Each structure stands twice: as structure tokens, then as C-alpha cells.
């Protein structure tokens, strides 16, 4: 065992040496022929690298390189396009027949069949496997049996999934969900080879998938080397020879390394460097919208925040926040003031509607003051905005928001920030309904659908409805939208639901978040997708 470990270390070292010499060469021998290897900043994934167990960007990066699912989201438009799916048919928005395209294999040679999907999804849903994305499968019939809310599971496979041929399977949902096929681009729905089930530990040490890259070596906590898979059957082959992901504990160091020429790509420019990034990197600094919205949620379980006239207070608070100034000065325009509850990455057809929030999201101190007074004043005379202080530079903007509110209300004590030490503790207080005032809520979409920005967050008892907001009209409209087979009409219903959200001001939309990245002059064609993950396979080296 020890010997094997050393072998991977040496392989890793050799890869580093190779990458280093490539750097020194300045794009000589590796220029343009698609064999150059780039290095990219990485963070240690929080969970084991299983598709249904990865819910953060760092692990997501790897899955995006190593796997291809039935659908794939276009990096520019966000549209869900068929990838492995030949066709997905339905007549009632509840029963779907999936045909997998012929000719796909995993990098170990195994064919991708209908069973690769069904087994993977059953594994992901099954309670005993502790998969954190299990809820993605919740719409599939039979999920309750493999993943009951409490007690032991009574089945290992979902009755809603049936393999009907080598390349066909059927999905039965427990409710109508017209846009369900568009959710299948998410990593959790990736197919898995038999090796995943047969020798799980070995697979985790060196994941095998069906994407354009294969894992060459993986030293947990420090580096993963991915190389182009030459026999990749898809048409989005890697344009480079491979990617070395290097773990950085501090994104400032990664940025310094980029400046010194030791690293090719940093996909998370630290907040403190945003000011310099433009002058340091010029057009090698990219700043594009990502499917992330930041909001302030309210504890509707607290009677103070759930009384009549409360919506006026919430609207007043929203109007007391000078979003333009904060996004300009604190975020250096890497965030855009929000005017609805979705994200610009959805596009107009997808349901993003600029200005849906209307006046309620415009800075207007006088109106704000009036509304708050009409609504009975701030509960307890003061709002405390809770946030976790350990990551994401939250302190800076919370303080700025409070400042803005204090200035608008002419009251130094109207708003204060209330930091919580760690993210885990912060989440704890939220799930235990211990919040006593507004709190920071961020949402990164799972898939580019308006449904994903509304239902999980504001539907009664939905999984991420942290404020426990509940509104019958909203719920009714969401149900109606899901049952609608015409996508355009479904989007309209969702937007009507969003208007209910606005009238009640269930959460204050703050800003849309952009993804930012910087890269060395060896690279070209660098872009971030809607999940703020670099589109690695399109990057050219040299």
C-alpha cells in the first residue's frame, strides 16, 4: 500500500516538473497543437467525489471534466442540450422515455447503457449511501421508499425507473414536472460504470467517467492531474492536453502564483485583489454572470417578523439599501444589483425579468422611512443581520447594508451585523429556526431553470425555505407551472408566482453574483459557465 502511495507521489512530481518546464518554455514546443497542459487553482472538495455527493464548485469542477450526462447546459446560453440523450419523450409531463445515444463508453472501455444511468440514480437516491444530493431524485416515483424521512428504507431501487432495453429506460415521476428533462444536466444525474459499484474505494481514489478527461493521478488534499481522453466519443473533445488542479488554501496565494507565472488559471479572484485585477491582467480577467443570487431572508417563524403590515417593513428595508453603491465600491462590479428573484443567466425566455421587483428594489430613503413607519416600525427597534464571518467577505457588505439602512432611516442603531463564527454553526442556527432577524441567504442554482430559483426556496416547507415562508397563492402558481407542458406558459406562471413573492417581499433580493477568473498569457478561449466553473475542455494552451 505504502509503495503504491509513493508511486503516485512520484507520478505527481513528474507531472509538476513537466508542467513547470512547459511554463519555462513560454509556449514553444507545446504551442497550439492541443497537447499543452494547464494548471488551475482548486480547493479540497468537501465530500467524496461521487456525482450525487458533490454539491460545491470544487468537486463540481472535476465532475464537469470527467462526466457527461444525458443533457449538458450550453456554457453561453444555459440551454439544456442533448448530450448522451438521443431523445427524451413524454406525452403527459409525468412519464418519460429516455433513449441513450449509441457509441458512448466510459474511459475504461465499458459501454454506457440505460443501466449505467438507472444504477447510478438508484445509488444516489438510496439513504444508506449518504449522498447529499439525494433530493434531486425526489421527483422520481418510489423515492419515498428508498429515502424515507425517518426510519429504514424499504426498497433499494426506485419503482419509477425501469430499464426497457439496452439503451432505453423509463422514468415515472410522482407529479407532473414539465421541465424535468432540463434538470438532467446536473452532475448528480451522471451515469456510473460498474467499477464504481464493484470496487468503490479504488474508484474514489481514481474516478472513472465518460467525459473528455480522465484522471491520471489524484493526491487527496493537494493535486489532481487530469489528461485528455483521446478516444472520447463526444464532439466536445478537450482542446488542451490536460489540466492540473492544484489545491490552494488561500485564493490570495493562487492569485500571487498567477502573477508570478506559476499558475495558469485562477477561477476565484480574491475580493481584495478585484481592484488590481483589471490592471494586472487586462483582458485576461473575466467577469461573467453566474447563476447565483444573494438575498436577505426573514424568519417567518418569529411572530415579530410575521405580523400584519410586515411586508411594508420588509419593503422599506429593501428600499433603504443602496445596491448600486455597494456593488460598485465593495464588489467592484463583480455583482449586479438584483431586480428580480432569479438570475440573468436564465435569459428572457428562461424567466429572468429585469425590473420585476420594481420600486421595491430601488433606493429611496424617504419612501423607505415612510413604509417602515406605516408597517409599525422595526421589530424591537433594531434589525440584526446575521451572517457567517468565516468565508466570502460577508462582513464587508453586511456592514455596508446596515450603514445604508441607518443613513436612510437617520438612526445609528437601526441596523447592526450579527456575525456567526463558522458556516456550519450558521447553518445550524438556520435549520433550528433560531434566527431573530434577517439573515444572509445565497442561492446557487442547480440547473438553469426559473423553477430552481423559486420552488426550493419559497414553496411551503421546501428544502431550502430557510425563512419558512408560506403562501397558498404562490404554492398554487408553482404547482400550475409544473403541470404546464408548454414551457413558455410554465415560465409565465412562475413569473406570476414571483410577483406574489414581490408583493409580500418574502426575501429581499440584493444582487446577482458574477464569476470571476484570471488567466496567464499562455491560455486562450477561457470562459466560465453559469455555475462559475471554467469550461476547461475549450481552453487552448499556447
Amino acid at each position, binding site marked *: 500500500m505504502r509503495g503504491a502511495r509513493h508511486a503516485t*507521489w512520484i507520478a*505527481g*512530481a513528474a507531472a*509538476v516538473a513537466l508542467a513547470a518546464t512547459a511554463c519555462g518554455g513560454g509556449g514553444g514546443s507545446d504551442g497550439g497543437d492541443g497537447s499543452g497542459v494547464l494548471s488551475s487553482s482548486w480547493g*479540497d*472538495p*468537501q*465530500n*467524496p467525489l461521487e456525482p450525487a455527493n458533490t*454539491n*460545491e464548485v470544487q468537486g463540481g469542477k472535476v465532475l464537469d471534466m470527467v462526466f457527461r450526462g444525458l443533457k449538458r447546459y450550453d456554457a453561453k446560453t444555459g440551454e439544456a442540450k442533448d448530450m448522451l440523450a438521443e431523445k427524451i419523450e413524454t406525452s403527459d409531463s409525468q412519464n418519460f422515455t429516455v433513449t441513450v445515444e449509441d457509441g458512448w463508453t466510459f474511459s475504461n472501455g465499458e459501454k454506457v447503457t440505460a443501466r449505467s444511468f438507472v444504477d447510478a440514480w438508484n445509488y444516489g437516491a438510496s*439513504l*444508506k449511501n*449518504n*449522498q*447529499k444530493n*439525494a*433530493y434531486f431524485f425526489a421527483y422520481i416515483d418510489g423515492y419515498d421508499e428508498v*429515502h*424515507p*424521512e*425517518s426510519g429504514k428504507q424499504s426498497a433499494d431501487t426506485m419503482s419509477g425507473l425501469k430499464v426497457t432495453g439496452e439503451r432505453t429506460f423509463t422514468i415515472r415521476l410522482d407529479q407532473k414536472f414539465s421541465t424535468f428533462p432540463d434538470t438532467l444536466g446536473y452532475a448528480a444525474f451522471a451515469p456510473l460504470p460498474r467499477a464504481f459499484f464493484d470496487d468503490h474505494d479504488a474508484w474514489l481514489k481514481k474516478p472513472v467517467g465518460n467525459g473528455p478527461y480522465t484522471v491520471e493521478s489524484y*493526491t*487527496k*488534499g*493537494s*493535486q489532481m492531474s487530469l489528461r485528455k481522453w483521446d478516444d472520447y466519443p463526444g464532439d466536445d473533445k478537450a482542446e488542451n492536453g490536460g489540466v492540473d488542479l*492544484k*489545491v*490552494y*488554501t*488561500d485564493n490570495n*496565494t*493562487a492569485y*500571487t*502564483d498567477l*502573477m*508570478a*507565472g*506559476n499558475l495558469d488559471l485562477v477561477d476565484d479572484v480574491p475580493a481584495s485583489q478585484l481592484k488590481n485585477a483589471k490592471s494586472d491582467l487586462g483582458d485576461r480577467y473575466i467577469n461573467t454572470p453566474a447563476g447565483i443570487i444573494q438575498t436577505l431572508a426573514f424568519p417567518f417563524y418569529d411572530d415579530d417578523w410575521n405580523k400584519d403590515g410586515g411586508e411594508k417593513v420588509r419593503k422599506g428595508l429593501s428600499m433603504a439599501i443602496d445596491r448600486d453603491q455597494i456593488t460598485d465600491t465593495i464588489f467592484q462590479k463583480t455583482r449586479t444589483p438584483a431586480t428580480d428573484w432569479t438570475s440573468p443567466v436564465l435569459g428572457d425566455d428562461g424567466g429572468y425579468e429585469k425590473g420585476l421587483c420594481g420600486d421595491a428594489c430601488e433606493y429611496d430613503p424617504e419612501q423607505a422611512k415612510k413604509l417602515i413607519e406605516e408597517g409599525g416600525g422595526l421589530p424591537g427597534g433594531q434589525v440584526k443581520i446575521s451572517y457567517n464571518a*468565516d*468565508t466570502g467577505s460577508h462582513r464587508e457588505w453586511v456592514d455596508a447594508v446596515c450603514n445604508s439602512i441607518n443613513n436612510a432611516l437617520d438612526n445609528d442603531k437601526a441596523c447592526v451585523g450579527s456575525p456567526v*463564527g*463558522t*458556516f*456550519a*454553526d450558521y*447553518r*445550524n*442556527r*438556520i*435549520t433550528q429556526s433560531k434566527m431573530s432577524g434577517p439573515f444572509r*441567504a*445565497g*442561492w*446557487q442554482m442547480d440547473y438553469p431553470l426559473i423553477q430552481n430559483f423559486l420552488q*426550493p426556496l419559497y414553496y411551503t416547507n421546501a*428544502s*431550502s425555505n*430557510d425563512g419558512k415562508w408560506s403562501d397558498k397563492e404562490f404554492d398554487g402558481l408553482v404547482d400550475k407551472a409544473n403541470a404546464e407542458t408548454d414551457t413558455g406558459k410554465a415560465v409565465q406562471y412562475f413569473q406570476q408566482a414571483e410577483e406574489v413573492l414581490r408583493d409580500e417581499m418574502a426575501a429581499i433580493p440584493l444582487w446577482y453574483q458574477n464569476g470571476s477568473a484570471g488567466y496567464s498569457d499562455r491560455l486562450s478561449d477561457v470562459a466560465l459557465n453559469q455555475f462559475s466553473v471554467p469550461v476547461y475542455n475549450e481552453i487552448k494552451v499556447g
Partner: protein
Amino acid sequence: MGRYVIRRLLQMIPVFVGATLLIFLMVNVMGDPVAGLCGDKECDPATAAQLRREFGLDKPVWQQYLTYMGNVFTGDFGTAFNGQKVTELMSTAFPVTIRLTVVAVLFEIVVGIALGVVTGLRRGRPVDTAVLVLTLVVISVPTFVTGLLLQLLLGVQWSWIRPSVSAEAPFGELIVPGLVLASVSLAYVTRLTRTSIAENRRADYVRTAIAKGLPRRRVVTRHLLRNSLIPVVTFIGTDVGALMGGAIVTERIFNIHGVGFQLYQGILRQNTQTVVGFVTVLVLVFLVANLLVDLLYAVLDPRIRYA
């Protein structure tokens, strides 16, 4: 001597148990770690419950502690949330940090003591004043400033070193981080040695040694330095533990994947197993280093005897 060591080893047991218990409780006070595993979303209750059961978090704290300690004595430090064994994390992290500490301690011993001797022998001269001012500057500037400054100057502006240390962290790449880590202690070592040397220079035994006609070199190294080193050795000995645990800042700046990195990540993710495991080992290092220091006294000063 033997009985003394045994007594000291026995004294370590309550210290060890107390320290681990405190850390265990402190990490537990921060609340339920499972809540932080699902991003900005709530973990679905069934999975969360299952995870808690698997990590033993559903049991009362005292029971968790007993099970944990029981496992520790069999060499099982538990599993981190990302599915890695804590012992595996240790086997990659500790060698790196030990190398870093060795570099730092070498700097302290070689540079610190040399400067201390030079200034102690030339008290009041320009060299002494210059070094004193320099140490004052080093002590008053926080480590992260020195670290970032050196990284920017040497790594980016002048390209003498790589700004970050590679995953293998060989000695060569650890020189600058080691210097940064050692800088403050180095200044203290210089000052301690200087004072001690300056004081002992006028001691009777030094005068006797000089009067005997011994060469100056022998007087300084055998008589003066040996007797002056006791406070310095105490300082360096306790510093070994402090350097290993306190490398968090330096390790973050230079992206060294050592103990500091694992501890920082463990705390952020509220990973009891990682934090308690690493701290336990650090406590042991600290205790052993202290014992070694005490034993070194006897070597340096023959008048000190342990019974």
C-alpha cells in the same frame, strides 16, 4: 534520571487527557457539523440523521469522547468528512510541517545564537545597536506582513523563489517560509542570548578561564556560551511545539499543505475528528519537547542533577 523521566511521563497522562477533553468540548460547542455539509441548503433530514449516526454525533458528548479516546489508543483517529482517514491526513501533513519546523529551528539556532553571541560580546557597539533595532522591527511586524512582503518581493517582483510551495514541499522550497515562521522567535533568541552572554561575561569563572590563559575561542564556546544557553534552550524547546501548531499563518501564505492547513480546514468544517486528532498529536509533541528541554539542562550544566 530514569525515575525522573518516568515521573514526568506519568505527569503527562492527566495533561494529555485534560487537553484533549478541552479541545473535544470546544469543537462540540460550535454545534452540529453536519449542517455545514450541504452548502447554503439544508441537508435532507434523513441523510443528515444517517450521517450523524455514522459519525457517532447522535450520542451524548461524554460517550463520544470515551469512544474516541478508546479508538485513539488503538491507533484509529477516525475519518474526516471527505472520507479520508485522519491518520492518512496526518501522514501527509506532519512530514511537511516537521520539515518546515526543522528549517525554522535551524534558523533560530544558527542565526539567532550567532547574532546573540556577536552582540553580547560587543555590547554597546554599532553592531549591537543595529541588531537590536532590527530585532525590534521583526518582533513588532506581524508574521503575515513579513510573509506576504517576502512572497511578493522574492516571488513575484524578483522571481527568486516560487511564491507557493509545491505539494511535495522539499527543503529547498521551505527556506523562505521557514525564515518567516522563525523570524519572531529568531529575534527573541538573539535577544535572550545577547543578555545572557553579556551577563556571564563578567562572571568569575570566565575571568578565571581567561586568567588560566585559555584561548578566547575556547573561553567563549566552552565556558561562556554553554552556561549562557540554558534560557535559550528552554525557549527553543517550547517553541518547537508553538512553531508546529502556529504555522497556520505561514502555511496559508505559502500554500503549504501541512498541519496548519488541516487544522484550519478542520475548524472551518467543524470536523471534530481532524481537529482533535491533530491537536492531540501536537499536545504530545509539546509535552515531549518540554521533557527533552529539562533533560538537556543536565547536559549543559553538570550541577543540575535529576533524581
